């Protein structure tokens, strides 16, 4: 009893002293306001990346820095452990925790199957029973993939009168607008010209379109995506069967995975992520940083959480965390969406820098009131899972570079200075995490592509460490951008690989995208 009172007063004292740790009001963060056509920000500013560094974030950074410095001082003065050795020990422990976390998630993924429906269940659905389904496709300078987009959407097996397809276009993006007109899409395709207001990001386009959407359910497709034709029906069945699910995600695959070494490794990374890691996070009920390809939502859920944050460049990652904070579940359906993997170095770097920038933004936003976040996520374990999944991913990419330089430095110079940072146990821990960790994660990539039947990709996965090197480069670029260009949306350029007629035929043959009866008669 006594200890409970002490604990309560201690908690209160901490909260009073360090305001930035917990949200001051009982309500506020969950408030949404859809009446905002200045920047289409519907959520609370405290949950948005509009302010990259709020005073709470700065306070938290200073507080954390002081805490770490205090710990280092303690280790030096009390434990007689030199500061750099203590840092080295801390980092080695972080690596170990990160590795164990991922392995635990993967181990749980084996007993987690995506939500599956038999063909009979799908075909038994009556058209009249199906709800209106909105498809949002934000386009920007993507004229080259327009025919493919139209083709893929027309192939969707869903009654046309129940489909609410909204393609958003920027008014100054004449080329894409022309391409849309030239493609002469079916009548149920709606083109929405976006108002010329900042920020010019994908989530802002989605928010504008969301106000127009009339579907009970809603899915966001990227321009070049090719979803399984029966994906909407599967999603509807899953939403119907599991009322607690707020968001569904199919697995992602790449139709150009064999194009070059970069696309092969990209595909391997996603195979691991979607087949081995994500299901594990779901099984453990951890917050999931969604990736915005083919995410299906209940409209009612989006209304409650305030749709997307127009200032966050990885709105998908952010919304995944926000869904968890608001108590909604995310799950995976047994369906595949195929998209194009960035196949050129510059395009890949730009895309990955944006993702990493978004991860940084998401970390800064959600860690604004860490105690409040902990409470909303459901406890310290989930809080730790968030820290490892979102900011942890950024940190590990940065640290990797540091350690690779250290390793190269030691191998070439055999410097005692470097050796001194790694006394006995820290050396063992570091070597263990370096060797075993790298081996395990390369191996998991191999298993990921093998399980998908992409046997020819297996040998290329052995090059994953080089891919991680690129990832580190992209992360550093993102760190630069988060400071100097926080809201700049670096558009991923597509190669328009499947825009020729021959390619389209090939695409149909390879990936079974076939127009179904849902195609409009007026087409």
């Amino acid at each position, binding site marked *: 009893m006594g200890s409970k009172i002490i604990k309560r007063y201690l908690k209160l004292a901490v909260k009073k002293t360090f305001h930035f740790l917990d949200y001051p009001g009982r309500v506020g963060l969950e408030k949404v306001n859809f009446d905002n056509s200045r920047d289409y920000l519907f959520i609370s500013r405290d949950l948005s990346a509009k302010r990259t560094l709020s005073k709470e974030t700065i306070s938290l950074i200073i507080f954390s820095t002081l805490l770490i410095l205090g710990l280092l001082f303690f280790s030096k003065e009390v434990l007689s452990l030199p500061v750099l050795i203590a840092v080295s020990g801390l980092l080695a422990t972080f690596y170990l925790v990160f590795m164990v976390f991922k392995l635990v998630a993967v181990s749980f993924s084996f*007993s987690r199957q995506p939500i599956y429906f038999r063909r009979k269940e799908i075909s038994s659905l009556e058209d009249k029973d199906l709800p209106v389904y909105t498809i949002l496709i934000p386009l920007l300078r993507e004229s080259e993939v327009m025919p493919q987009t139209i083709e893929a959407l027309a192939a969707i097996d869903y009654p046309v009168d129940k489909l609410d397809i909204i393609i958003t276009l920027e008014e100054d993006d004449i080329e894409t607008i022309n391409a849309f007109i030239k493609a002469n899409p079916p009548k149920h395709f709606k083109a929405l010209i976006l108002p010329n207001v900042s920020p010019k990001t994908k989530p802002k386009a989605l928010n504008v379109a969301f106000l127009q959407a009339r579907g009970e359910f809603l899915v966001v497709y990227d321009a070049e995506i090719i979803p399984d034709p029966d994906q909407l029906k599967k999603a509807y069945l899953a939403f119907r069967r599991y009322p607690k699910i707020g968001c569904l995600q199919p697995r992602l695959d790449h139709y150009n995975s064999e194009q070059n070494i970069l696309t092969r490794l990209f595909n391997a990374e996603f195979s691991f992520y979607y087949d081995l890691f994500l299901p594990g996070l779901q099984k453990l009920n951890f917050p999931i940083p969604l990736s915005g390809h083919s995410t299906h939502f209940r409209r009612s859920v989006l209304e409650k959480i305030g749709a997307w944050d127009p200032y966050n460049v990885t709105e998908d990652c952010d919304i995944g965390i926000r869904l968890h904070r608001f108590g909604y579940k995310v799950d995976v359906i047994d369906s595949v969406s195929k998209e194009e993997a960035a196949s050129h170095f510059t395009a890949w770097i730009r895309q990955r820098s944006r993702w990493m920038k978004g991860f940084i933004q998401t970390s800064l936003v959600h860690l604004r009131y860490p105690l409040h976040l902990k409470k909303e996520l459901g406890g310290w374990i989930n809080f730790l899972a968030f820290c490892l999944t979102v900011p942890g991913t950024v940190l590990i990419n940065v640290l990797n570079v540091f350690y690779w330089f250290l390793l190269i430095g030691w191998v070439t110079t055999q410097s005692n200075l470097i050796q001194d940072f790694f006394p*006995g146990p820290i050396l*063992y821990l570091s070597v263990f995490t370096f060797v075993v960790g790298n*081996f395990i994660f390369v*191996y998991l990539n*191999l*298993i990921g592509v*093998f*399980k998908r039947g992409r*046997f*020819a990709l*297996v*040998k290329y996965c*052995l090059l994953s460490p080089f891919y991680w090197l690129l990832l580190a480069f992209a992360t550093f670029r993102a760190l630069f951008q988060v400071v100097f260009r926080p809201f700049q949306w670096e558009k991923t350029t597509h190669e328009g690989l499947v825009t020729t007629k021959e390619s389209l035929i090939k695409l149909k043959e390879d990936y079974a995208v076939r127009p179904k009866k849902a195609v409009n008669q007026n087409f």
Partner: protein
Amino acid sequence: MLLDLRRRLTKISKIELGISALTISLTGFMVWRVSQLGLMKALTDQNAHLNFSKQLFDSLTPGISQLGFWPPLLHILMSPFVLFDSLYKSGLAGFFTLLPFLILGAVFLYRTCLILTKSKLSGFLSALLFLLNPYVLYYGVTPMMEVLFMANLFGVAYFMALWLQREKLSSLLLSGIFITLASLSRFEGLILIPLVGLIILIHFVKQRKSYSEVEASLILFGLLAAVGLSFILIYSWIFGGSPTIFASGGWWLKGSAEEIYPTKHNLFKTLEYLLYASFYMLGKPLVITSLISFLFLMFVSKNKFLTLSTLAILFSPFLFVWLANFTGSVSMFVPELPPFGFFHNDRHTLSWIGFVVMAPTALIGLALQKFGDLKNKKVINIVNFLSLIPVIFFTVTLGALNLHQFYSVVFLEKFEVIKLNINVPTQDHFEVARYLEQNYDFGKILLSRANNDPILAEANLPLSAYIYEGNYRFYQQVLDRPWLFSRWVIMENPSDQVKLTKPIAEKWANSDTFNHYYTLVLENKKERLYKIKEDHIEQLAREKNYDLSQIPSFNSQITSWDPQKINFGVRD
């Protein structure tokens, strides 16, 4: 997670639980019997394994460098147990480490037989024959690597058989993991990489799989299977200077009695030695029965590739040992053959016991299966029933033969084979150990490890007090001028008839300088023990302007030093 664990536990059959209980009972009995006969640490190697494990923590240079160039798995697994002094002294650390592996090995054999024959009875019989082998039990309760290797080998055989039957990726990967564990248990495991790789390849070719699937599967399998080999190569490279130094045993074998190779470059002679040793280890009747059974089995087995592959895996250690003896990498002695009267490395032939028990029991299983088929077809008649009699007779005979061997070795011969081993520590070793136990004051003791492990195990001193080859830079420094660092020196007696390479004796046995600084305090047939002459060190310090308090052989406070920086207090 708990549900998953429960699901896995309920998969364990009652027979497997019975096998586990039987293993515990038999090993419990064997611990008692072996302790009663005083054979728990009868071999130098048993002492060496205990020391390798303990030195991971208790050494002048503790850590991974102390693993040595032997396969390291036993040393790593045993290390938590040797921290308890009583388990280290008694050798029971080995028993506690190996018991789970003995159970695992027996269960794997049972399951493998079940895959081959679908007969629980023959599966149980194979586990029983394995467990009733007196040497399996002996090496399962003492700190040796054989049982650890066998359990992992049986794991490879089981998962490969399972994969050949069902083609589940997890079975393929697990067989790769068990190859790594087998390679880290004994070098015999290394032959499994090409052998199992070949089996996988042939299976895929038979199945007409695509090139890319074959390639991908082999990469997935090979990466896991080669982890053990990679560890051994990298470790040898880092600590031994050459990736292949493990093949010659590294520094440990440099000093051991390994100069006679009676079977080198003679294929048939090697086979003769191996068969003799197998007869001792596995029992002559059982070996002959199993070879004949194998021929029958190949004739009657329905899935010949599965049977042959499984038996090839179980037979592989025999091939490895044959090759190793033929090339002269190791030697083997049996009393009937030159150099006569001794056993040496005879236990290497124990590892193909899987094949020896599996061939006849699988044959029994197939016979029972055939009988079961007839019963199902309701064509059972007196002729079919009578055909069971030879099977029952064969089964009973096998059991009886094994029991007879067990009784003879454990009660009549009282492990004569172990006692006649060339690597049995002598009273001379124990005399040195006792002297040190009673007279040791402080400071380091220089010795070479090979053949001296019993001294380390018996002298009751912290292992950090010794300087030996595994201390690398320290050892090289001390070997150059021992009197400045080492208060005590154990030197092999140069007059000993057993051929040894003697690094310390070679350098200092006839040296006046050495005798100037050391007094011979004990000498027997095998060893000499020296202690520092303090007055001569004081004189040396005066002459060289050394600070006496900085000389490790003189100052009891110095327990370690930096080999690169030590200058005995001389000012530049």
